[in-house]
């Protein structure tokens, strides 16, 4: 097994105030190898975005990592000095978010924002940085990069902004790209363009990607391996093919059954009953037991462990 780019070990992230601590990411373990695309899937509030912010050490002030390690090429990022972390961010680990408008500075031109990280991380001259910025803008599909560099973010459409974000994230050739719902706010034809672009960029580098999404269609299209999260925990993880063909956790099966399809017969959707319990209100046994059609007495009494059921396929379920 080649050396992992990223290792997350027993990560526990909490929201904290004077009176109480609320665990939102509860003991997450995973690795990302070179050139792997790992999808982190789950519904609102499952902790997938808090996991990505924990990796980047970008948690909001009210949250902190209570336990665990995040190792990038062996170096633990938890507790790393901000100055050190800033050298990694944007250079070795980049991130793109759902809403590109909130990630771009509205009063600076695209060019200023794009060259800033190139100058800072790669130590090249302004002129050289402009040339590299132009190359990347061309790469993400702007035929006239010099014109785009002079534009302000509000002059661009959502799809164009997300492509600028991608150019910015890629400009220092990072090893790891964290993409948090990068196409969720885009129209489907534009989403197809952006996904296609990410795939092409992957082909010509050995970058790894952590792709955070709630859309199983996007997972099937992009990922090599999938991690399904529910209520702050990993409930199932395996390669993408097994996940869609032999899902084992009842929650994963529920997600697949409730997703409407574009092909095949139109069957009535089978929803998952109830809704996700809020953090801090999890039931004592299996956190999915109240919504699970198969739940037995043991599920309500005892919390299941994540265990390897077949090689490479881990499931957190007593009945798997």
């Amino acid at each position: 097994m080649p050396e992992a780019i990223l290792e997350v070990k027993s990560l526990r992230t909490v929201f904290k105030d004077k009176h109480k601590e609320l665990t939102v990411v509860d003991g997450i373990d995973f690795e990302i190898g070179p050139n792997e695309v790992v999808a982190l899937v789950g519904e609102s509030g499952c902790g997938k975005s808090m996991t990505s912010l924990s990796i980047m050490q970008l948690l909001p002030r009210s949250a902190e990592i209570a336990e665990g390690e995040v190792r990038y090429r062996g170096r633990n990022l938890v507790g790393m000095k901000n100055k050190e972390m800033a050298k990694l961010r944007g250079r070795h680990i980049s991130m793109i978010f759902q809403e590109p408008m909130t990630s771009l500075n509205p009063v600076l031109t695209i060019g200023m924002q794009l060259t800033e990280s190139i100058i800072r991380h790669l130590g090249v001259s302004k002129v050289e940085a402009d040339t590299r910025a132009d190359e990347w803008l061309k790469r993400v599909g702007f035929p006239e990069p010099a014109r785009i560099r002079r534009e302000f973010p509000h002059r661009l459409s959502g799809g164009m902004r997300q492509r600028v974000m991608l150019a910015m994230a890629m400009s220092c050739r990072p090893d790891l790209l964290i993409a948090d719902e990068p196409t969720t706010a885009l129209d489907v034809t534009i989403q197809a363009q952006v996904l296609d672009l990410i795939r092409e960029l992957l082909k010509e580098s050995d970058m790894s990607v952590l792709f955070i999404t709630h859309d199983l269609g996007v997972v099937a299209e992009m990922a090599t391996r999938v991690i399904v999260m529910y209520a702050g925990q990993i409930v199932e993880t395996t390669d993408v093919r097994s996940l869609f063909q032999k899902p084992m956790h009842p929650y994963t099966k529920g997600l697949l059954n409730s997703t409407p399809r574009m092909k095949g017969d139109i069957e009535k959707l089978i929803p998952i009953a109830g809704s996700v319990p809020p953090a801090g209100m999890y039931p004592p046994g299996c956190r999915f037991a109240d919504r699970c059609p198969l739940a037995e007495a043991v599920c309500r009494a005892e919390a299941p462990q994540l265990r390897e059921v077949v090689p490479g396929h881990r499931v957190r379920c007593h009945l798997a």
Partner: protein
Amino acid sequence: MTAPLLEIKGLKKHFPIGGRFNKKGAVKAVDGVDLAVYPGETLSIVGESGCGKSTVGRLALRLMDSTEGEILFEGTNIAGYSQRQMKPIRKDMQCVFQDPYASLNPRMTVGKALAEPLIVQQKMGAAQAMKRAEELLEVVGLRASATALYPHEFSGGQRQRIAIARAISLDPKLIVADEPVSALDVSIQAQIVNLLGDLQQKTNVSYLFISHNLSVVRHISDRVAVMYLGRVVETGTKDQLFNNPLHPYTQALLSSVPEPDVDGKRERIMLRGEVPNAANPPSGCPFHPRCPHAVDRCRTERPAFREVEPGHSASCHFI
């Protein structure tokens, strides 16, 4: 054939740009739309952001005034009706919006929010209206005791159920549902899609379902209209449209949806560029700058919207 419940003819909505003294043209959000919704059916309008689909819904409900065209509700043109003339018709046409957080008054208990339209429109007494509110909550799968709670005490999916309970409270003939499941997680989305289907079977209500989510539309619709830049470019029954899309835009749109399935190679039609500005739409066929098949004729001549097979129409020179 039965008469349509709602029929829209040549509907236009132009938003002027600039002030009163320096007019700079107009955004043609809706630019000549014809649609019909029959009793008991679901007609979906699909399209991407800015295609005008939500505006059509708002115009049909008379939540905004149209620039031109007719809106026939049960055969009567209501396009020019005043708000007072609209009031008796409002109970027959209701709406459900995308964001259930924004459509419920945070300072009103759910019971009050549900009882109010009953008191106003059906002149019910307060106690009777509250009792009916409890029944409505049970119809949409919530507990009757929920009448005493405030909207913030519910999850997003539950709030959308409350919004639906309010929409059906006056036994409307038409519900305009504008992206009603787009803000919901997929497991909850399926609950709401099923609920809308069950209600239609029980009450024979018609839906004008506005959505960008094509796989949801495939599950819920009888007929589908595809909009692009303020116009309908293709309509057909669900099977016609999804199995045999004729317009190149519909074809591209359908092929762009990622399918949660690892087998089955798909041919993806990648569109160039983005949707043009509706203030300055392209000449000829408005889709030509992005169309993979465009020829000179498409740049100059606007294609007619014509019927290709019974019930299936599209506007393209090459069909």
